[in-house]
């Protein structure tokens, strides 16, 4: 990665190196699953290379299909359910192409943050930004959808 991932913005080079040392690199083949909806979320993932599809199941013509909800690419974070109770993934993730991710075990991250509170604070703020971005995006999409529903049924 030429730049720091979004989760590590604002950290010193030394702090970034320490955090990256916690992560283990994983290669996910195209189409392979990174995590599944409802599974225990014990790792946070930062995408190094490639693209990850976040999906939710939807019944379409009597069969269950995974419908795209969001796509994340290089430098972005997925699986932040690992840092939020009840520590269960609320989406499924699969690789849209061969993808490399850094997997950060929750326990190791929290233990590191306990030792380096300043790093923990900056990473938490970055994570809050990621979560806020998702929230803003989806509340806007929800409002657009609600307007369409009202136009369709109550006009």
């Amino acid at each position: 990665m030429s730049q720091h991932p979004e989760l590590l913005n604002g950290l010193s080079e030394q702090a970034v190196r320490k955090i990256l040392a916690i992560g283990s690199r994983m290669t996910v083949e195209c189409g392979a699953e990174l995590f599944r909806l409802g599974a225990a979320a014990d790792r946070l993932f930062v995408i190094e290379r490639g693209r990850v599809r976040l999906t939710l199941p939807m019944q379409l013509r009597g069969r269950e299909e995974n419908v795209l909800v969001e796509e994340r690419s290089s430098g972005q974070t997925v699986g932040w359910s690992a840092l939020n109770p009840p520590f269960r993934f609320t989406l499924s993730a699969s690789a849209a192409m061969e993808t490399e991710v850094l997997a950060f075990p929750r326990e190791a991250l929290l233990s590191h943050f306990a030792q380096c509170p300043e790093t923990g604070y900056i990473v938490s703020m970055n994570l809050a930004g990621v979560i806020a971005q998702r929230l803003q995006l989806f509340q806007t999409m929800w409002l657009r959808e609600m307007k369409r529903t009202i136009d369709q049924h109550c006009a």
Partner: protein
Amino acid sequence: MKTKTMFVIGAVICGWGAFLVYHGMDALPTWLVWTMGPLCWYLGGVVMLAAAWKFFTRIKKTAVKPARFVAATQIPAPEPRIPIELLLLQIENHVRLEQAAAQSFIDFPNPAVLHRKTTSPLVN
């Protein structure tokens, strides 16, 4: 006409036929008796057969007719108009367009941008 009424009419016509054949010889010409009598039997028989047909087919229809609430759930689904793979692609395209539209609102929040239409075929 009700099945019961049809059956009674058929029986009455047959009865006329029988009356003509067995008691009309004295008062009516023989040719008339032997023409009208069997004709009445024939017509009465046809009417009674029709009544019987109507009665039994009605019972059969009633027997196979499912309850209304069951029928409502058993309405066959309309034939899919487009293949499921194409529908999934349309949904993906729709999600991307909606996210782009939502992102442009987040970047420059104003009411006009919030409800700006996309080209997604799922909403047009």
